[in-house]
């Protein structure tokens, strides 16, 4: 029982990181209509930047975290303006942005690999909070607590932003049709830049927290996150970020539980198996709403 509860805690913490990433991924997919393969590299660059700032510049971890998140957001805006904006302006179909994002992914991943090198590193032990919390006999690492808190704050914040503010209405209007949104006085380009920044910054946060939890900063952090986040978005549906976030947490719990009680080898197979079954049985996602569009 103790083991089960402890693994549940571990699963929720792991899942929170997947869920965080999924929220950003779902934002880009739902509000900009882009299946952004490069989203994982934003997470990687967030983590790499914060690691550099902590080790080389001697900043405190929290400052480095904030700057890493900002850098990831800036990368997201740069990618959007350099690659996606010209495509939007031309009215290119749904495939062109995917291809462009593959190009960005190749560039950012190659640069990350060149920058990080092959050796695995982690944040210096004295710079990050490490004292575990004990609660009812369960051990919670600071990284786990931070991940869960970050998820709650981000999901609540983004959800309130989208549903309760004028700016959120603008984002939703632009998502439906940028031209009609412009007619009613929304600055579509500025809105999309803000969404790109927000989504990539959340990815950067997920990358940094993932690196902190794994005790490992590498150029491939984002790749693993991309696959799990992607699964969470598909299963949860991308219409509502709360669905994607919930499924992200569930995936984390499933992973930890299946490697504890079934087999660690088939851990990923279970995640992606669920993904495929949901895709075939309920393509709009478990929490998604059916959209009516012309064939």
């Amino acid at each position, binding site marked *: 029982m103790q083991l089960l509860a402890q693994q549940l805690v571990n699963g929720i913490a792991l899942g929170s990181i997947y869920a965080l990433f999924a929220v950003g991924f779902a934002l880009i997919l739902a509000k900009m209509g882009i299946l952004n393969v490069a989203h994982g590299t934003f997470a990687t660059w967030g983590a790499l930047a914060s690691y550099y700032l902590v080790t080389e510049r001697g900043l405190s971890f929290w400052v480095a975290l904030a700057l890493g998140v900002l850098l990831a957001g800036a990368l997201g805006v740069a990618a959007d303006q350099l690659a996606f904006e010209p495509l939007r302006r031309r009215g290119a179909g749904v495939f062109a942005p995917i291809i462009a994002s593959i190009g960005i992914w190749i560039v950012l991943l190659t640069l990350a690999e060149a920058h990080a090198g092959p050796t695995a590193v982690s944040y210096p032990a004295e710079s990050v909070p490490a004292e575990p919390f004990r609660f009812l006999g369960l051990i919670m690492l600071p990284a786990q607590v931070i991940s869960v808190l970050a998820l709650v704050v981000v999901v609540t914040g983004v959800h309130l932003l989208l549903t309760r503010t004028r700016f959120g209405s603008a984002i939703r209007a632009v998502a439906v049709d940028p031209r009609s949104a412009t007619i009613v006085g929304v600055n579509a380009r500025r809105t999309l830049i803000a969404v790109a920044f927000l989504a990539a910054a959340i990815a950067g946060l997920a990358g940094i927290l993932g690196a902190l939890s794994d005790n490992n900063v590498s150029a491939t952090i984002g790749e693993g996150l991309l696959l799990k986040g992607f699964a969470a978005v598909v299963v949860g549906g991308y219409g509502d970020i709360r669905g994607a976030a919930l499924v992200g947490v569930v995936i984390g719990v499933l992973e930890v539980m299946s490697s504890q009680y079934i087999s660690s080898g088939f851990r990923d197979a279970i995640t*992606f198996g669920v993904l495929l079954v949901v895709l075939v049985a309920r393509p709009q996602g478990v929490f998604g709403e059916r959209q009516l569009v012309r064939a």
Partner: protein
Amino acid sequence: MSTTALLTTLQFAGVNALFALAIYASLRTGVLSLAPVFFGAVSAFTFGYTAGTVGLSVPLALVVGVGLGAAMGAVTAVLIIRLDSHYLAMATIAMVLIGRVLIINLVEYTGGPTGTLVPGDLGTWAWLIGSLVVACYVMSRLAGSRYGLAADAVREDPAVAQTLAISPRRIQFVGFVISGALGGAAGIFQASFLQYIGPDTFYTHLGFVTLAAVVLGGAFHWAGPVVGAIAFTLLPELLREPMGEYDRVVTGVLLVIIIIYMPRGLVDVRRLRLLRSRGRRRAVDDDATPTPTDRDTTPAQVTT
């Protein structure tokens, strides 16, 4: 680059061209699918098992592998063809991800994480060029056929195609089967060249790079994927000396630039026709001033 290195690179370019044709086969029916990578993986490991462990003759094992690829294409199509474009692309990516997990865990047949050795009998120029020629011939014959025309219609607008009594699902199903057979063949040749395959041989990277090759070459003519695959395989090798580890940065930047400024790729039949007609028109212009009707009938006005 030395001649041997160049020849090896060209061989891989040929294999990638087969993969690119497989992706093109479904893309021309309006379906973005990375499933050929999965089909290639299954066929390659089946080939390795039947030809290497069971001891089936190599050509027979090739036929089995290609048939298996086509069959999987059919099954996949039945399951996922009704999904919307984004979801369909995602489902095929998920297949590639699951494929890797299966390869790692079916140790008895695939060698698990360490991979398996594959007979190299098919890793010759004759087999490669032969299969490429066959594949190109089939695709070029299909292009002008009733199927090819229907596929173009489905790609441009499924709703319009349906009003013309074309069933988009059926066309896309056939596209998936062709894609499966080509993907299976490509996987087997890839395996035979490498003589070793592991869980990472057929993974997302291969899929994304091949997709990039199709876009670079042009997805509106069968020659596009072939040209794109050769260019996309040669380019990083040529850039390796001057650029070192940054060679792939150029590839990525190029991909973005091409999709923005040359969305129809290098092999763009429409642009070629346009240029030719412009040349012809200029010749006419020298004789007489153009009339508005002249302009109306030029292919420039035909939007596809």
